[in-house]
C-alpha cells in the first residue's frame, strides 16, 4: 500500500502543474455537484420548514358559497359549519383520526392586561387542534378536555403576544381581559415556522357560550389515519360528499368548500423536488464526465511518456495486472484527492451560506420558507464518493489497458 502511494507520488511530483490542472477539473465537477445538491436541499428544507406547523396528513376545510343550484336551493348560499358536523364526521366516517372545529371571534378582539392592551384574533379550539396545527409549548399547558367540558375561561397566548402584554412578567395564572371578560392565562405557545405569529386561543365551548351563543364553527380540520396520498384523497372525497349531503349542496360544487389537503401539496412539492434533484444529478454527472475525460487524456499521455519505464518494469517481472493497477491507482488517486478537496470546498461554501442565511432570517424570517439550511448531508457525500471512485476507475481504464498492452521489447528499443 505504502509502495503504491510512493509510486504514485513520485510520478505526480514530476509533473506537479499537470497533476494540479487535471485534478482541478474533477474538483470543480464535484464542487458544483455538492453546491447544486445543497441548494436543492435548501429549497426543499424551506418548503418543509413552512409546513412544520401542520400535521402531514391534515385536511382543512373552509366553508364557501354554493355556486350550483341544488335540490331547489339557490346558488350563492353560504355554508355554515356547526358542532354537529364534527360529531357526525367522527361518528359516521372511517379513516379519520382527529377532527376538530375552530371558531374565530369577530375579527380583532382587544386583549387587556393592566394598562397594556392590543387587538388580536382570538381562536376558539378543542385539544385536537394541537394535533393538527402543531405548536410548541413554551410554558404552562395547552387547553385540555376539562377546560372544554367545563367551559373554563382560560387562555393560551403566543409568545409574541406575551412579550407585548407582559414584557418580562410571568403570564401564567394572570388574568387578561378578552373583549371585557376575564380569562386566566394557562400557557404560552410558539409557532414553529413563524415566531411573530399572534394567536390567542380559548376553549371552543367557552368561546361559543360567551361570545357567540350558538354552535357555529368557522372551519373544520381533521387528520386521516393514512399515510398515502391516494387514501388521503379518498377520505377527502368522502368528507366532501358527506358535507354536501348534510348541507345540501352539489357534489360537483367546487366553491361550496375550500379544501386544503396537506399531503397532496406535500406530495406535489416532493415530486417537484425529486425532479429537481434528478436534474441536478444529471448536470453534476455531466460536469464530472468532463473532468474524467480530462484525467483520462492526461493519463494516456502519461502512459505514452512512460512506455519505456513500463517496458523495463515488465522485463523485470511486472505482470500486466500490476501495470494496470499502477495506472488505475494513479488515476484513482488524482480523482479521489481532487474530488475530496472539491467536496470539502463545496461543503464549506454551503456551511458559510447557512451561517449568512441565519443572519438574514433574523431580519426577514419569511425567507426560511423559501430557502432554509442548504446542506449536503452524509448521504450526498457518500454518493459523491461513489461517483468519485467510479470516475477515477473509468478515467484510468483506457490508459491502463494501453499500458498493459505495452510490449517490453518494443519499449526497450524505444530509444
Amino acid at each position, binding site marked *: 500500500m505504502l509502495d503504491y502511494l510512493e509510486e504514485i507520488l513520485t510520478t505526480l511530483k514530476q509533473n506537479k502543474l499537470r497533476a494540479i490542472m487535471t485534478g482541478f477539473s474533477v474538483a470543480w465537477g464535484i464542487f458544483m455537484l455538492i453546491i447544486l445538491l445543497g441548494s436543492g436541499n435548501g429549497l426543499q428544507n424551506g418548503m418543509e420548514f413552512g409546513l412544520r406547523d401542520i400535521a402531514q396528513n391534515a385536511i382543512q376545510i373552509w366553508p364557501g358559497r354554493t355556486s350550483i343550484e341544488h335540490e331547489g336551493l339557490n346558488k350563492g348560499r353560504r355554508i355554515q359549519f356547526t358542532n354537529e358536523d364534527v360529531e357526525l364526521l367522527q361518528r359516521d366516517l372511517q379513516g379519520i383520526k382527529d377532527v376538530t372545529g375552530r371558531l374565530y371571534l369577530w375579527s380583532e378582539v382587544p386583549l387587556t392586561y393592566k394598562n397594556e392592551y392590543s387587538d388580536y384574533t382570538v381562536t376558539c379550539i378543542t385539544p385536537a387542534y394541537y394535533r393538527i396545527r402543531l405548536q410548541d409549548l413554551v410554558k404552562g399547558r395547552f387547553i385540555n378536555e376539562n377546560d372544554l367540558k367545563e367551559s373554563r375561561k382560560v387562555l393560551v397566548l403566543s409568545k409574541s403576544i406575551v412579550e407585548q402584554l407582559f414584557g418580562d412578567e410571568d403570564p401564567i395564572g394572570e388574568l387578561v381581559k378578552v373583549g371585557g371578560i376575564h380569562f386566566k392565562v394557562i400557557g404560552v405557545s410558539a409557532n414553529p415556522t413563524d415566531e411573530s405569529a399572534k394567536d390567542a386561543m380559548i376553549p371552543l365551548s367557552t368561546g361559543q357560550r360567551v361570545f357567540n351563543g350558538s354552535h357555529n364553527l368557522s372551519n373544520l380540520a381533521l387528520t386521516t389515519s393514512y399515510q398515502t396520498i391516494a387514501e388521503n384523497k379518498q377520505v377527502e372525497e368522502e368528507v366532501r360528499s358527506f358535507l354536501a349531503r348534510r348541507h345540501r349542496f352539489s357534489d360537483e360544487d367546487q366553491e361550496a368548500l375550500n379544501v386544503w389537503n396537506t399531503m397532496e401539496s406535500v406530495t406535489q412539492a416532493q415530486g417537484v423536488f425529486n425532479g429537481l434533484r434528478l436534474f441536478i444529478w444529471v448536470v453534476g454527472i455531466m460536469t464530472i464526465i468532463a473532468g474524467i475525460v480530462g484525467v483520462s487524456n492526461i493519463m494516456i499521455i502519461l502512459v505514452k511518456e512512460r512506455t519505456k519505464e513500463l517496458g*523495463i*518494469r515488465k522485463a523485470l517481472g511486472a505482470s500486466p495486472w500490476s501495470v494496470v493497477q499502477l495506472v488505475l491507482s494513479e488515476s484513482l488517486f488524482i480523482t479521489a484527492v481532487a474530488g475530496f478537496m472539491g467536496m470539502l470546498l463545496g461543503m464549506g461554501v454551503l456551511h458559510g451560506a447557512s451561517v449568512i442565511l441565519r443572519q438574514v432570517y433574523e431580519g426577514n424570517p419569511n425567507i426560511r420558507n423559501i430557502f432554509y439550511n442548504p446542506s449536503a448531508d452524509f448521504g450526498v457525500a457518500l454518493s459523491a464518493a461513489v461517483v468519485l471512485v467510479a470516475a477515477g476507475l473509468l478515467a484510468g481504464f483506457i490508459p491502463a489497458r494501453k499500458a498493459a498492452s505495452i510490449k517490453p521489447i518494443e519499449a526497450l528499443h524505444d530509444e
Partner: protein
Amino acid sequence: MSKSIIRVEALHKSYVNGKNSLHVLKGLTMNIQEGEMVSIMGSSGSGKSTLLNVLGILDNYDAGSYHLDGIPITRMNETKAARYRNQYIGFVFQSFNLISFKNAVENVALPLYYQGVSRKKRNDLALEYLGRMGLREWAHHLPSELSGGQKQRLAIARALISKPKMILADEPTGALDSQTSREVMELLKEVNQTGIAMVIVTHENEIAAQTRRIIRLRDGIIESDEVNADFQTLPNT
C-alpha cells in the same frame, strides 16, 4: 554432471508484416550449461537480437522448442512470462534501462518489489548488492547523477538481486569506453564465477574473446559454436 540451463531445438521465428514474412531464426539448436559464459556474435540482421528476445521470454517463437532450466517455454500469457523472467533471468542492456526518477536503491530493489518482498527487506538486500558493486555511497543518487560505468554496475546489481539462473546481456559494453568496458567485463566474469550462467550478445570480438564459448550467428543459423582457446580465467581466482 552439469545441467543445461538453456536448451533450444530447431527454433524458428518469422516476423510477419502484412504479406511479407521475414524468416529470422531458421532452426537454431544449442545448449548452454549451468554456469557457462557464452557470447553470441553476429552482424546486424543475423538474428542475434531476436534470439535474445526469445531466450529472455520477451518474444514468442514459431516452431521448435525452448527449455529454460528444464521448463518448457511455450506460448504463455504475459503474467506467467513476467514471473519466469523475474525468477530465472537477469537482464543487462546496452542503454542500461534504469528508471530515471528512481534512485539507485529503488532501481535495484525493483525486481524484488514484483516478487512481493517487503520494503525493508528488499532495500536492505539492494544496499548489499550495491555494496558488492562498489556503489554503496551512490545508493540514494538518481541514475542521471552516475557515470556510464556506474549505471551499468547498477544494472548488473539489479539483474543479480533476484538470484537468477542466468544473465542475458545485450551489448553490455556498447555504450562504454574501453577502460570502463574492461571493468564491466571483469565484473560479469566475477558474477559468472558465482555459478550464474552468462549469455552476452555482442558484435565486438574483444568482448567475445573474454568468454569461454563463442556462438556465431549468420542469417538465422549457427555458423560456428566453439570453445574459446584464448579464454583466461581470472588471475585472482
